[in-house]
């Protein structure tokens, strides 16, 4: 743990400590041990002399509780964890001046609500993507353009609908409700008052009877789409790309828009190796490393220069990297907190623990 007092950002770099410990999504920190061809860590180690140990996590929530152990210097956090980490005082502000590669990052990713607080940067954007809608082209016809296939019209695919297994998914419903029930007045899917949340919950409860399974790891969803156990539901671009050739599935960014994530490399408030941590943040933001990591994981890179280094020359295009319009349709994951993110002051918004309880009850 740490204190809730904001710590000061570092102003200058010191000597490398010789090691750094990272916490990240699977596929963000690859050192060749799993596949000798996939390795961007060794280069960093050679360059800086910082030995990397890493641990992966499966959900943002796991990342949040792991950071509480104080074992990690650096974390790659999605928006639904980052603010909580800041709030809990587990991470420190990041002085972007100490990170030369910060310059190359797409502007629309900088100083956003999920990576900064009160104008203070808490990290470096890594990669981003949208939570898309995937459907089986043979079963789901005509090709959907709206989220209604998984909500109001989901009964047509009873038992073959899927959704991402996390409380943050409630934002998907909120995005849908922004269009379909404007009277609720949802401005930001992460700032829901009790009525708004109740409406989202109801949407999911109605959907629950048609759900085949929820997914939390992408292997599960890949399998389910390949076998046909699941025909429609939320997904990531990378899942679509992993499907076996010939699998009749397509993804779409529905007209209502979508939620998404933009991950941020953050530094622990009481990091044991802050200098190696800064070195890592700079390294992973470099066009080469950023390209390797985001391509391997399957998301858009954050560094504009990365598109020149991807193995697949079309990678940036496939993942809509740098497409500001596309990015504008995405509501990046943010942690819901009691103080409404949309600026309302007349009501109290529901916070993440409310969402968690609601999600458990939806699953039942």
């Amino acid at each position: 743990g740490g204190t809730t007092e904001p710590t000061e950002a570092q102003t200058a770099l010191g000597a490398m400590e010789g090691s750094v410990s990272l916490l990240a999504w699977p596929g963000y920190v690859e050192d060749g041990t799993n596949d000798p061809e996939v390795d961007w860590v060794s280069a960093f180690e050679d360059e800086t002399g910082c030995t990397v140990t890493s641990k992966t996590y499966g959900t943002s929530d796991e990342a949040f509780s792991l950071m509480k152990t104080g074992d990690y210097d650096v974390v790659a956090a999605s928006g639904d964890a980052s603010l909580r980490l800041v709030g809990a005082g587990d991470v420190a502000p990041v002085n972007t001046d100490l990170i030369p590669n910060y310059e190359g990052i797409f502007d629309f990713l900088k100083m956003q609500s999920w990576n900064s607080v009160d104008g203070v940067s808490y990290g470096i954007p890594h990669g981003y993507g949208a939570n898309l809608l995937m459907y089986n082209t043979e079963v789901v016809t005509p090709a959907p353009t709206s989220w209604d296939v998984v909500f109001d019209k989901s009964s047509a695919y009873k038992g073959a609908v899927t959704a991402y297994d996390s409380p943050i998914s409630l934002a998907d419903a909120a995005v849908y409700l922004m269009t379909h029930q404007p009277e609720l007045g949802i401005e930001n899917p992460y700032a829901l008052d009790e009525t708004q949340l109740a409406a989202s919950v109801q949407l999911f409860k109605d959907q629950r009877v048609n759900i085949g399974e929820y997914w939390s790891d992408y292997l599960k969803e890949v399998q389910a789409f390949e076998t046909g156990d699941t025909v429609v539901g939320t997904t990531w671009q990378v899942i679509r790309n992993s499907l076996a050739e010939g699998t009749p599935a397509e993804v779409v960014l529905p007209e209502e828009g979508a939620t998404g994530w933009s991950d941020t490399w953050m530094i622990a408030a009481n990091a044991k190796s802050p200098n190696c941590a800064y070195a890592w943040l700079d390294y992973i933001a470099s066009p080469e490393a950023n390209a390797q990591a985001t391509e391997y994981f399957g998301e858009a890179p954050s560094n504009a220069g990365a598109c020149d280094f991807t193995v697949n020359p079309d990678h940036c295009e496939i993942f809509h990297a740098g497409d500001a319009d596309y990015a504008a349709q995405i509501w990046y994951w943010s942690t819901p907190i009691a103080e409404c993110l949309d600026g309302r002051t007349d009501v109290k918004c529901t916070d993440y623990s409310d969402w968690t309880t609601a999600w458990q009850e939806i699953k039942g």
Partner: protein
Amino acid sequence: MTVDASAPPTRRAVVPPQRGNIARRGSVFLSRHPRLRLSLLLSAPLFWLGLVYIAALAALLITALWTVDSFTGQISQTWTLDNIVAVLTGSLYQTVTLRTVGVALLVTIIDIVIALPIAFYMAKVASPRAQRILVIAILMPLWASYLVKAYAWRSVLSQGGIFEWLVSPFGGHSPGYGLPATIITLSYLWLPYVILPIYAGLERVPDSLLEASADLGGGTWSTLRLVVLPMIWPAIIAGSIFSFSLSLGDYITVNIVGGANQMLGNLVYTNVGAANNLPLAAAIAFIPILIIFAYLAAVRRTGALNNL
């Protein structure tokens, strides 16, 4: 005994007297103080189990009486019964508890029903050689990782998977992902843990009792019902402790093949992992602890606890 005449009645060789080294003096001392011997034996393990385990459990239960700050994730040590009350009254917890206990019971019953004939065949019918091979065959799958096996079942039970392929000629369907799949997979995972104690229990039933029953006119079923079953009951209970408690706490299998369902383990896991609400998780953990204690208390009399 024709004693060797060449051996003189004065003894053959000199047997040295007992040696008086430290080990020996220790032995002498200890042999006079059985209580000390007992405390030497038990202090290390009791220290371990008491300090590591019981203290940890107690601490966990105390945690259930605290709360957590939802935004910072800090536990604040103010005493409250909120979590306990929430768990006791929340309909979510009741539903999930019922579902979990139901799954665990079904898994246990299925495993016992499957294990009985196999264990019987192994212990009482198969030749010693076949017996040995069968034990190996039962033990080997234990070494394929739990996760790998669970994913394998996911594949088997998927649409167009092997299961469907096997049963469709008979008009059957794969149950798909859901509680039935969970029950099948859990039964599969814990089956060896149930077969082994029952097999050991059957081995301890002397053949002469089975013969005595047949001799008195008991047919196969009478013998099984009246003699074999009551005698291996403790072994069955022992096996059931494995399948029941392992199922009760599982959250991974249900995630993989359970479709949209969740069990008690998921609630605990979500609350500790996702919601970072250890006090609530601890309160939920009370449920399986109570169930297991009740179960252990119920079966203690059968002597099953000596048969695990």
